[in-house]
C-alpha cells in the first residue's frame, strides 16, 4: 500500500517541496477522515505521495500545513494547501481529469451534499462508542443513537420486498424495469432524496457520497459495533456492494493490524501509528 510508511513525529525534518506531477497527502493509516481522501486519490488514479503524521507526537513543522495540526491535508507542487476532508475530496474531483465522482448535474450534486448532512453525527458517535467500549464503559445509549442515525440513512433507500433483491437489481430488463421487486416509499426523506432503484447512495454506480461515508462503515466491525446495522438491511446491502468496489478493496485495512493499532492507541503508546509496518 502507498501509505505503508513510518510516521513523522516531533523533531523530524520537514519534507521538501512536492515534486511536479504529484500531489501529497498528509495522513495517518487508521484515520477515517484521511481515508476519504485516499479513496478519492485511488478512485481517480491520481499520482500521489503519502506522509503519515504521528498524531500523538506531532512534528512542529506540521502546524505550518494546518493551523490545528489536523489531517488530512493536501499539498500540491505549487505549495497550495487544502484541508477539511470533504473540501479536499471535492478539490481532487475538480482539479483532476478522468472519472468524475460528483455528478455533473447541479441538482444531483446538491442532493449528494444534502445526503452528507444526514451523516454528520456518525463520526462522533462511532468514536464515542469505540472509546466507551475500550474503556470498559456502558454504551447502550450511544449505540442506540448510532442505530437511529443509521435508520435515517436507511430511509434514503426504497423498501425492497424480495429475497433475491440484490441479484435482481443487477439484472434489470432492457426496458429498465425491475422484476419481482416492489418498492414503496418509506418516508419524506425518501421522497426528497431517494431514487426508484439504487444500490449506492448516488444511484446505480458508486460515487463521491459513497466514498465519503465508507470509512466509518469499514470500522464498525473492528470497533465492536457491527450489530448497529442489525435493523438496516439496505445499509447492509450497500456495505456488501461497497466491498466489491476495487478502490474500497485496494485500501481495505487488515483487521488484525487495525486491532493491534487500537490496542496500542488506547494504551497511549506513541508507536501505535506505526503498528504493522515491516520497514
Amino acid at each position, binding site marked *: 500500500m502507498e501509505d505503508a510508511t513510518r510516521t513523522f513525529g516531533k523533531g523530524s525534518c520537514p519534507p521538501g517541496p512536492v515534486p511536479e506531477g504529484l500531489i501529497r497527502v498528509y495522513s495517518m493509516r487508521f484515520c477515517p477522515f484521511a481515508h476519504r481522501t485516499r479513496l478519492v486519490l485511488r478512485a481517480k488514479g491520481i499520482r500521489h505521495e503519502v506522509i503519515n503524521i504521528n498524531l500523538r507526537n506531532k512534528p512542529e513543522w506540521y502546524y505550518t500545513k494546518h*493551523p490545528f495540526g489536523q489531517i488530512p491535508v493536501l499539498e*500540491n507542487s*505549487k505549495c*497550495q494547501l*487544502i*484541508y*477539511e476532508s470533504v*473540501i*479536499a475530496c*471535492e*478539490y481532487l474531483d*475538480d*482539479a483532476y481529469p478522468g472519472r468524475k465522482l460528483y455528478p455533473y448535474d*447541479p*441538482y444531483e*450534486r*446538491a*442532493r449528494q*451534499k*444534502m445526503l452528507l*448532512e444526514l451523516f454528520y453525527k456518525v463520526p462522533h458517535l462511532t468514536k464515542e462508542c469505540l472509546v466507551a467500549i475500550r474503556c470498559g464503559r456502558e454504551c447502550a445509549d450511544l449505540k442506540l443513537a448510532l442505530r437511529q442515525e443509521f435508520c435515517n440513512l436507511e430511509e434514503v433507500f426504497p423498501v425492497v420486498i424480495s429475497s433475491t433483491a440484490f441479484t435482481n437489481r443487477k439484472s434489470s430488463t432492457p426496458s429498465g424495469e425491475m422484476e419481482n421487486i416492489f418498492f414503496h416509499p418509506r*418516508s*419524506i*426523506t425518501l*421522497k*426528497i432524496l431517494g431514487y426508484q432503484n439504487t444500490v449506492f447512495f448516488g444511484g446505480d454506480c458508486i460515487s463521491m457520497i459513497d466514498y465519503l461515508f465508507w470509512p466509518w462503515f469499514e470500522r464498525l466491525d473492528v470497533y465492536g459495533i457491527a450489530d448497529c446495522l442489525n435493523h438496516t438491511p439496505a445499509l447492509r446491502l450497500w456495505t456488501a456492494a461497497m466491498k466489491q468496489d476495487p478502490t474500497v478493496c485496494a485500501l481495505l485495512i487488515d483487521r488484525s493490524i487495525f486491532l493491534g493499532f487500537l490496542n496500542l492507541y488506547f494504551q497511549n503508546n506513541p508507536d501505535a501509528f506505526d503498528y504493522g509496518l515491516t520497514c
Partner: protein
Amino acid sequence: MSGGSARSLAKGSAPPGPVPQGLIRVYSMRFCPFAQRTLLVLKAKGIGHEIININLKNKPEWFFTKNPFGLVPVLENSQGQLIYESAITCEYLDEAYPGKKLLPDDPYEKACQKMVFQLFSKVLTNKKTTFFGGNSLSMIDYLIWPWFERLEVLELNECVDHTPKLKLWMAAMREDPAVSSLLIEAKAFRGFLDLYLQNSPEACDYGL
C-alpha cells in the same frame, strides 16, 4: 420577484401549488440570516424567483414535505426538485444558472472559499484583502454578510471596533446593490426579535 414582504404561511394553510416554469421558489423568512444568504445570491445573479415566507414559530404541516428538518431556506424548482441547507442552495444556484459566477472556477480558489467558510472566525483577524474572497465581492462575502448586518441592528458594533478592516468591509458591502436592496430596517428587526424571544407566532409577520 414577488413575495418578499408577504405574510408567512402557518399551520393550517393550504400547500402552495407547483412552481411556474421559468421561476424558482424559495421558502424563506424575512428575518432569517440563513435564508438571506439564498436571497442575496438570487438577487446578485438576477434569477427570477418567488418567495414564500414560512412562520417558523407555527410551521405548516406541509412544509416538512419540502424539508424534513423543517428549516428555511429551501429551494423548489418547476421540476419539483427540492434543495435545502443555505450553503448548498447558494452553490446550486451558482452552478445551475448562467451569468456571473460567484464561486471561482479555479479548484484551489474554490476550495479556499470553502475553507474560509469553515474557519470563519479565524479569518476575521487574518484577513488581508478587501473582501473575504479577494479584491472583489464574491460568494463568501454573501455567506458571511447577514450576521454582520444584524450586529449593527443589535447595537453590537463595538465587536468590530478593534478590527478596522472589518468595518471597512461592512461599509463596502453596504454599497453592493444586492446587499443594499435587502437591508433590514432596524426598528422592524428589533420588533421581530422582541416578539420572537416571547415565542409569539406573530413574530415572523412583524411590520406587515
